[in-house]
């Protein structure tokens, strides 16, 4: 790929929104006009990323996944077939794709779900090899995944669970544990940000929660853990309009220039609330297209058929 294509490709990412977020990138690339439709392989994005980072102080890379392959544990069923993805601080990535394309598997592999086995490739999170770490260590390092359908834990109150997980992270960071009262003080603003009532804390973890309550609870955990990279696996599924807005607003409220979000979704609607910097299309365990929010709009209009026809 020559430099010209790289430059054109990069300009495709430089939406005005990105320009606000990373002025350094736009100042060089001068994205005055955007091609109507441009798609590139994700490899190109990485190349651009490397090129850009070598030239200036662009945001730090949070997560870098290269050539990741994974199978269902104990079988030969390959789900991921060479995933490549780089996420920098301050970015919002969205992965879309048909059912069974490996989106959820990708997120589960990143957090170390025992159902999957990594067979090749690397994932570097904040400069450290992710696959060397246990799931809880990945969480301590600042990686968070919201579960698509979080499991119910009868007998454990939400409050205790949140405090345990918060204190586990604090212990890993060498900070003192928070007592029940201190923790409540820490928690209540986060609760109100999600429009959640404090009675929520007395209930058992996810037990008897509605779909919306479960998703809110996941975001509450994200808020408590103050993760650097939040992987949100279909947080829009099963939510009504109001709940979606609450959840999206809470996620937006948690965004900082030093953290990032990776969303997995089927619908454009979520992307209206949480604006993506990049949209990736997954197919058969790989990212086959990368673009900006426009890509999701095209997808919404024409379906996956239209995209593959266009490529």
């Amino acid at each position, binding site marked *: 790929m020559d430099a010209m294509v790289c430059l054109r490709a990069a300009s495709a990412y430089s939406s005005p929104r990105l320009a606000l977020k990373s002025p350094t990138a736009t100042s060089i690339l001068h994205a005055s006009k955007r091609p109507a439709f441009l798609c590139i392989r994700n490899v190109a994005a990485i190349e651009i990323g490397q090129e850009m980072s070598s030239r200036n102080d662009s945001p730090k890379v949070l997560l870098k996944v290269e050539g990741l392959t994974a199978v269902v544990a104990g079988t030969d069923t390959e789900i991921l077939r060479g995933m490549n993805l780089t996420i920098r601080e301050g970015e919002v990535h969205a992965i879309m794709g048909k059912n069974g394309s490996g989106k959820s598997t990708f997120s589960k592999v990143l957090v*170390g779900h025992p159902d999957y086995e990594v067979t090749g490739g690397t994932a570097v999170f904040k400069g450290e090899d992710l696959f060397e770490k246990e799931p809880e260590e990945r969480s301590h390092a600042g990686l968070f995944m919201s579960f698509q359908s*979080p*499991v119910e834990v*009868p007998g*454990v109150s939400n409050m205790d669970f949140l405090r*345990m*997980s918060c204190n*586990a992270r604090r212990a890993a960071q060498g900070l003192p544990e928070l007592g029940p009262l201190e923790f409540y003080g820490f928690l209540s603003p986060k609760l109100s940000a999600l429009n959640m009532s404090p009675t929520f804390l007395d209930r058992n973890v996810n037990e008897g929660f509605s779909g919306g309550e479960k998703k809110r609870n996941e975001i509450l*955990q994200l808020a408590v*853990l103050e993760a650097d990279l939040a992987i949100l696996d279909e947080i829009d599924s099963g939510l009504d309009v109001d709940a979606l807005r609450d959840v999206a607003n809470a996620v937006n409220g948690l965004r900082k220039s030093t953290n990032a979000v990776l969303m997995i979704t089927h619908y454009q609607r979520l992307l209206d609330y949480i604006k993506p910097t990049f949209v990736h299309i997954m197919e058969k365990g790989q990212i086959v297209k990368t673009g900006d929010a426009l890509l999701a709009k095209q997808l919404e209009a024409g379906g996956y058929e239209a995209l593959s026809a266009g490529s």
Partner: protein
Amino acid sequence: MAAASIATSSLQVSCSTIAAESKLLPRRGFCLFAPGKSISLPPTLATSSLGSIIGMQRHPNLQISIYIDVKIHGSARKNFWVKNSATAAEISSSKQQNVPSFGPDDFVFDLAEKLEELDYVSALSATGKEALSHLREHSAETTLSLQWPTNKVEAYRFTDLRFLRNSNVEPVRQCPQDTGIELADFGIRSNADIHLVFADGVISSSSSNWKDGVFVGSIAALSDDHIEEFVIKKLGKSAEWINTDFFASLNGIGVRELGVVIVPEGVKMQSPLHIIYHSSEGGSKDGEKQSYALSCPRLLVLVGKEAEVTIIEEFVGEKGEFYWSNAVGEFFIEEHGRICHNYVQNQAREAVHIKQTCVAQKQCSSYELVEAAIGSKLNRHNIHIQQLGPDTSTKMSSFLLAGQRQLQDLHSRLILSHPRGFARQLHKCIVMHSSGHGVFDGNVKVNRYAQQTDAGQLSRSLLLAPRATVSVKPNLQIIADDVKCSHGAAISDLEEEQIFYFQARGIDPQTARSTLVFSFGAEILQQFKNKNLQQRAEKTVMEFLQSEGAIKTSIQEA
């Protein structure tokens, strides 16, 4: 009866963990025994049964769940046919127990004689003595027609009582006036907290007998009129079953005093009524055979129309003593009445605890049992609940914890005979040692006129050590044709999905496991109405789990 068809669904699972076995089943998920296609039966008495006996060997880390769900709803009659060798034995199980013996059982004869010699408490009036002697005579007759239950009897198949038969059993004769227990330890701070204390089967102290029209105390404190009006009419009459059960009859012979609770019509008691059963005397320690000191406390609870009460029953005893507490509780609930029954069995580890709970529920009444069985070497709880009118509600939640050389056995029988009954049962059992054993037989019988019954039953067991064993048999007998009934059993290790959820939130797997093991039981303990009781039960369970190494010692109570 002749025109009805019976759909009997029973699931019998005997499961033990044995280390280092090959993977029998997928790591997670339910193993389903799918019911066969529905077959309509000819309108004759026919039985069908769903279920099988399953013997399994599994790795402790594997999770095996067995679930059977039977739903019969709408007017269509469905019966499930699955090949089952144990059908006949299971259906007739309740009858077998009462088969008359072919000759006198010397051990039983001897024991009955010793019990008959016991005097009534001195304060008892003539009417009171008459009420109890009637029970004694009847029980003596029954006992002598029954044999000591052995494992050849279905109801005691997994409950080995031979050690008890091979020991000396001596009834407690001298009952201490002072139990030496601190009432404050049980959350009873003053005489205003209504309570009743049994010491070795005889009432040793209580709060004032009459309060706001409610009577709590010994039969000795009741007037003759009240005894005639309440006790004589009701004692031993909660169900026919109570007069045919071996241990209930044994209790009937050995009864020396009766604890009575009368909640009159319309009285809704706000504070709970606390009953403590304390055993202090153990069997003599010299002699070749082990000796057990037998006590037979008995309780009669009468709840009037639209009356409500929460009853806490706690069984405790002196550590290190060998005693046998053979208790019976009878509960009568009138129309629209309500009992919340919280029951904690925390006997000494060498003790034998056998208890019968018999409930008679009239129309629109509600009975809710929350039970925690933690102590004793052998625990057997028989629950017998009978509906006497439509629209009743029955809930049972039980948690049994079996450690080293402990047997925790729960047999429940719920008989629904009237329309629109509601029933829920949740049985949870943790076996944390290879020599521990959990037994559960939960029977729900839906009779012909019990249409629109909604009955659900679930048994969940957690095996934490190789060779830890549970034997569970949730079972339904359905004659009515318009009902919604389900039952299921899961025997497993902890769910990996739950452990991963904790890990994904930064909590290490050991802490996650410990928390989940504790919460397995806490789900039931949380249902105790009294916070003090809940906290004490949680503390006891936590300490026991820690002492057996089932959970980390650093885990703090939530």
